[in-house]
C-alpha cells in the first residue's frame, strides 16, 4: 500500500497491511508534527504533494527496499493538508522474518522518502509567521 491521504493515518492499519505468515518482525516509523523547531513555536503544519510523482516515487522506494533487504512487505502512507501537532505526517511499516532486516529496511525507506518524494511542508507559527521547509538543512 502506497498512499497519500488527507485523513488521519492509523499506524495499526499499515501494520495489518504488512502482516504475513512468515513475518516475525514488523518495524514502523512514524513521523510526527513537532511543537518546537529550534526556539520557534509551531502551531500546525501544512503538506503539499505533487501527487502523481509522489505516489510513483513511493512505489519505487517500496520496490527498491524489497530488492535491497530480505523483507516480506512494505507499506507507506503520507498525509497532506493541515496536520496538527502530535499527528502523524508519515507512517512506514515493514515486515520481515527477522528483526534487523525489518528495522534497517524501514530506516532506509524513510531516509529515501525524505530525499526523493515530492512533498513539501509549510510551518505555521503561533505568532502568525509561515515558512516552507526543506529537508536538506542547506536550504533552511
Amino acid at each position, binding site marked *: 500500500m502506497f498512499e497519500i491521504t488527507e485523513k488521519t493515518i492509523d499506524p495499526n492499519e499499515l501494520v495489518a497491511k504488512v502482516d504475513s505468515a512468515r513475518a516475525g518482525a514488523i518495524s514502523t516509523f512514524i513521523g510526527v508534527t513537532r511543537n518546537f523547531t529550534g526556539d520557534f513555536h509551531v502551531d500546525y503544519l501544512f*503538506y503539499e504533494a*505533487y501527487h502523481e*510523482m509522489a505516489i*510513483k516515487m513511493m512505489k519505487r522506494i517500496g520496490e527498491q527496499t524489497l530488492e535491497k533487504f530480505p523483507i516480506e512487505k512494505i507499506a507507506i502512507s503520507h498525509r497532506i493538508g493541515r496536520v496538527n501537532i502530535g499527528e502523524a*505526517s508519515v507512517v512506514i511499516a515493514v515486515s520481515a522474518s527477522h528483526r534487523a532486516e525489518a528495522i534497517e529496511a524501514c530506516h532506509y525507506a524513510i531516509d529515501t522518502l525524505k*530525499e526523493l518524494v*515530492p512533498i513539501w511542508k509549510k510551518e505555521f507559527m503561533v505568532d502568525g509567521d509561515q515558512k516552507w521547509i*526543506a*529537508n*536538506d538543512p542547506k536550504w533552511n
Partner: protein
Amino acid sequence: MNVRVLLFAHLKEIAGESEISLELDAEATGATLLKKLTELYPAADAQKGYLRLSMDGEYLSEDGTIVPDSEIAVFPPVSGG
C-alpha cells in the same frame, strides 16, 4: 515549443498559479527552463541549485533536454516525512 510547467510549494505562491506555460527553443535544457522561469518570477531566483526539475514524474537534471509534450514540474527541495 510550448511547455506546460507545474509549480509547487513557494514557487506556486510566487507565481500565484499552480501551472504556467513557457515558450522554449527546441532542444532546450532544464537550465534554460529555469532561467526563463526566474526571469518571469524574479522572486523565485533563490540560490543557485535550489530549484528541482522533473519531467513526466522523473527527476531531470539541469543538463537534461526538455522533451516536447512532456509534463514538467519545478519545485524547491522536498520536505516530506
